[in-house]
């Protein structure tokens, strides 16, 4: 599968936040989207997901425009993993995962035994079987994020869009969530687009990187092309240095002179 953005501009009524984004994501890709706060990463996500209209340009799935697609049809192609938050009611974990089946179930129906079986399966696959009957509101932030990923997997989409899935997690949970994402890409051939504030996520895990703003062109490329001292310094207005950790991989840290 392939999802393509052609000259997409988006924003709110009367104010364009993001202009002329061109992007192609294929099955098996892991794209990290970076950019400082306020450059419109979330706006771009919402527009791609159809939660707000795009101002200009078009979004295509396998070459076909999605403009007139129903929510159901789009949700079967693209899943969304929101930032983990607590709903006002303490649903059981399995019930939350089963909600991922909505795109396959009519508005006036309930999940069938088949739908519940899929929910059980993805819950086991993500390693949270033991939390099946626990209230979603009582589990940790990392577990909640994994439950939301399981829910998106129950949706059985070709692509997953994740909005800062690691931002509220402790270090261990960050690593666990990212490792899970990698496994999903390798095993199921999902295409994943993820926003992150940590350039090292992109260097260590991603197959491609896009960086946005502020006030500059939207550029894409391989992690090593994009996550460079020059680009990071310019986009984030800080001074970083790249530290090689092996022959092929470097990570970025704040520059020594900036730390004193």
């Amino acid at each position, binding site marked *: 599968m392939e999802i393509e953005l052609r000259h997409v501009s988006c924003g709110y009524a009367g104010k364009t936040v993001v202009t002329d984004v061109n992007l192609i994501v294929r099955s098996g890709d892991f794209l990290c989207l970076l950019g400082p706060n306020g450059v419109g990463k979330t706006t771009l996500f919402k527009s791609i997901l159809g*939660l707000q209209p795009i101002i200009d340009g078009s979004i295509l799935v396998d070459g076909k425009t999605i403009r007139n697609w129903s929510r159901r049809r789009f949700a079967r192609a693209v899943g969304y993993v929101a930032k983990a938050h607590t709903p006002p009611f303490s649903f059981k974990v399995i019930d939350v995962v089963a909600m991922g089946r909505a795109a396959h179930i009519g508005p006036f129906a*309930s999940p069938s035994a088949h739908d519940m079986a899929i929910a059980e399966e993805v819950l086991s696959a993500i390693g949270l079987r033991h939390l099946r009957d626990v209230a979603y509101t009582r589990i940790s932030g990392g577990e909640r994020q994994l439950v939301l990923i399981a829910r998106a997997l129950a949706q059985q989409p070709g692509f997953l869009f994740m909005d800062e899935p690691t931002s509220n997690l402790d270090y261990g949970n960050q690593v666990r969530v990212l490792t899970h994402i990698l496994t999903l890409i390798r095993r199921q051939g999902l295409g994943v687009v993820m926003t992150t504030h940590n350039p090292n996520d992109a260097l260590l895990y991603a197959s491609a990187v896009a960086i946005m703003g502020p006030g500059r062109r939207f550029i894409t490329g391989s992690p090593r092309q994009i996550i460079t001292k020059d680009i990071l310094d310019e986009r984030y207005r800080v001074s970083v240095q790249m530290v090689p950790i092996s022959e092929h991989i470097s990570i970025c840290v704040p520059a020594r002179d900036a730390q004193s």
Partner: protein
Amino acid sequence: MKDADSVGFPPRSSTFPTLAAKLWILAAAIPIAVVLSFAIGRIAVSPTTAMQILVSRIFEIPKNWPEQAETIVLVIRLPRIGAALLIGLGLSAAGAAFQGLFRNPLVSPDILGVSAGAGFGASLGILISLGPMGVQALAFGCGLLAVLSTYAVALRFGRAGETALILILSGIIIGALFSAFISAIKFVADPDNTLPAITYWLMGSLSSVDAVDVYAAAGPILAGFILLMSLRWNLNIMAFGEGEARSLGVNTRLVRSAIIFAATLMTAATVAISGVVGLVGLVVPHIARAYVGPNFSALIPGSALLGALFVVLMDNLARSLFSSELPLGVLTEIVGAPFFLFLLSRAGQVWA
């Protein structure tokens, strides 16, 4: 705190009784309550006699009870019990649905102005001396009109993603407007005649319910209930918020308007025959949630059954506590308020 903004007691991990069994227990309690209700009232009729009278309507059985008992059971108590069941079912299922839709456990079925609208319709009907049927029809119509106005205002001014909040705010305004209309009507009403009738009507009572009322209300209440039952699983998803529901593939506009339509139909029909029976739609879903858990697949039928049971029992109290009857709405609020405070104290940290 992990569950800082969550409400409700998580279902216990024990699997017995199962959810289905819990619903059956509720369903089984209703016939028992109904049989007892036939016996309760100013004039004693034994439950056995009451059952015999009911059975005699269908099968020929030897008649060994006074004529008066038959009148009491068939003309007075049967419609009352029927109305109490319908009202409890309607208000509680509608309340549970709105709490999910608006993602707020403090929402009641009249949040969009249906009660104020129906109250206005009834007051107007009494003012212009319509018959009982006319008053009910006008109450039902104005209840729907109020919610339609709320919906129209919200559509006109709401922005994508904020629909629930705008709906609640519009509902408060429209409700206040119709309440002002009610006051205006009371102000011009004849203080010897129509004003007491209006005031009494607004308190919520089943004392003048007859069989025709029950038939008239049963249609919309049961239709709304069937619609809610079919939407109940989608309510779980709506409780996660509009954006998430849409990204999961739910047609939120369709689901939201269908839920509002169903709940409004039920509440308007309820208010039309009984007046405002307060707090039922707020308190019963909470008790049901503590019993069957927050999943709306079980919560909608659970609330409906528990609500039917609750109002039947409350109406028994209303007509037997004192020598003269207490309006049902007054009683449900007097009983409901401390109960709700008790729930608040148990859920304590949840609302902190």
